């Protein structure tokens, strides 16, 4: 596991080198002023001082709309896939961890998803450790941490004047080797400073009661709490769309004059149509069942199937819910 450092003053040079090999995305502001991973060049300095992106980076791997097949003269063909490499710089550890969750579904479960696999293979993820968690963050309660970037190829950590960079995968090793001339050896003091910063960040994160969640949720399946908890839910799907681990999708066709495509789009278990049968029967007919499904999936079914939470504690669903719903509260109340 290679560990190097680079002066923050040389970051632009580092990113420019990556740009010679593919498209580089780095923290900046989008047209509406939201913090986002923006394609370089940004026209302004790369941000290092931020909470997290409004949208999770899952769209780089599971786009909101993605062509699965092209139709020409009624025949189905595989679409051409982009070949160019992509580099994501500044992904937060929670969002990097979410990729490990998505990998479970799209790479490790048979059959692997060829489109996801392709995006994952051509993309290098450089995570940036968190030094300023937000009040809605709880990564440390779901198996992660501000300096734990499982799922990233490289973990970068901000020091006073340097970025410490640790390769975490062969792809990450290869990346650091390719810019070796820009990198220096870190000192033991650098490593210690990084540790201290991460510990300080950890100390700011309030724990959420996730222990035994699978068992507690199993016991609470018929709890009256679900009806109460779901009452505020508008079924808007904001939580799912922003969630870095939510991956449910719909498949629909578009066709005009024999030419068109089959496309997958993000879908959401909060929508009544999600499970509606052609017969009119719906196994999850009201917000109660649908909201229960959402929590059960993340904190029970995912553990049963993949031995991990399908929640990384990024807090987006809490920050952005228009009805101020908070899964932390429900997880606590379900404790019984």
């Amino acid at each position, binding site marked *: 596991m290679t560990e190097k450092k680079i002066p923050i003053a040389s970051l632009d040079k580092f990113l420019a080198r990556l740009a010679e090999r593919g498209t580089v995305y780095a923290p900046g502001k989008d047209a509406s002023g939201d913090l986002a991973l923006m394609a370089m060049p940004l026209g302004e300095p790369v941000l290092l001082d931020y909470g997290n992106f409004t949208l999770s980076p899952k769209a780089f791997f599971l786009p909101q709309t993605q062509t699965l097949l092209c139709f020409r003269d009624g025949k189905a063909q595989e679409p051409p896939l982009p070949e160019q490499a992509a580099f994501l710089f500044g992904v937060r550890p929670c969002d990097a961890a979410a990729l490990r969750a998505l990998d479970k579904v799209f790479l490790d479960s048979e*059959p692997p998803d*060829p489109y996801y696999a392709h995006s994952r293979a051509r993309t290098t993820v450089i995570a940036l450790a968190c030094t300023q968690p937000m009040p809605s963050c709880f990564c440390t309660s779901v198996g992660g941490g501000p300096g734990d970037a499982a799922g990233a190829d490289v973990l970068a950590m901000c020091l006073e004047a340097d970025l410490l960079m640790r390769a975490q995968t062969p792809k990450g090793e290869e990346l650091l080797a390719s810019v070796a001339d820009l990198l220096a050896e870190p000192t033991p003091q650098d490593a210690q400073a990084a540790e201290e910063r991460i510990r300080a960040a950890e100390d700011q994160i309030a724990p959420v009661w996730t222990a035994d969640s699978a068992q507690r949720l199993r016991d609470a399946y018929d709890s009256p709490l679900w009806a109460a908890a779901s009452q505020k839910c508008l079924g808007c799907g904001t939580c799912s769309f922003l969630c870095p681990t939510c991956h449910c999708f719909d498949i629909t066709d578009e066709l005009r004059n024999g030419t*068109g495509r089959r496309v997958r789009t993000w879908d959401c278990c909060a929508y009544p149509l999600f499970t*509606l049968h052609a017969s009119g029967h719906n*196994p999850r007919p009201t917000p109660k069942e649908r909201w229960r*499904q959402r929590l059960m999936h993340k904190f*029970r079914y995912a553990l049963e199937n993949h031995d991990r939470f399908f929640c990384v504690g990024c807090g987006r669903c809490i920050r952005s819910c228009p009805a101020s719903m908070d899964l932390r509260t429900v997880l606590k109340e379900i404790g019984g």
Partner: protein
Amino acid sequence: MARNPYLPYPTRIEEVTVENGARDIKTFRLAFEDPAHAAEFRHLPGQFAELSIPGVGEAPFGIASSPTETGYLLFSVKRTGLFTNELHSLEPGAPIGARGPMGKPFPWERMEGKNLLIIGGGFAFTTLRAAIKYILDPANRARFGSLLVIYGARTPDELMYKNELAEWQARGDIQVHLTVDVADKPWTQHVGVVTRVLDELNPSAAGTLAIACGPPIMIKFTLLSLGKLGFLDDAVILSLEMRMKCGIGKCGRCNIGSRYVCKDGPVFTREELKALPAEY
């Protein structure tokens, strides 16, 4: 490289059989355009496939043909929604895609050497037909014990596969009891729900596995009757339906608890279902 799991096999509709007077249940016989694909598509009764019409979409259907019927696939489809309406408008010669086979079949290894009780209702009889054809195949028949089939529909006209049902009733190695909710003039067989016939026949649960497919209300009462007859929960095999898209356990909508009907099912024992939330 493995085949893209979203890419359907190109097939062509060879024959369309109208199954009922209302003309809203049709059986489609599909032949693969490429013989290599026909060889690749290896299914067992109980599995399903996603049929694909470009511009309309896809929908999952149980495979109604047995793998012993080589060279084609059968799908019996009731006209219900957008996709099935479009499918029903297709004529022989029309191209159509098929993805699969998907899901787990009936537990054929467990079924060997057992007496089999097959109970079906309405147009859910499709994969049961596949199972019966498979069992009756000369190469397979000796691997199984007695075969008792109870099949019910609303009216005699709503029974699918009428010619085959008559053929089976003329054979000695299968017992087929047909029943209808409402009889018409020429009907001489059972009248009443399938559970009434089941209770009357009173088959022994010893060394027997029961497979039931049908509408939820039929399943509900069939389970009660099977319980009374002494069938244990792991001797009762059911096949579920669920709204599906991908068919390969990714898109997330067909789950019951931690299991996905598309890849962990659609076949479950009653015992397996009891361990899951009743969300189906």
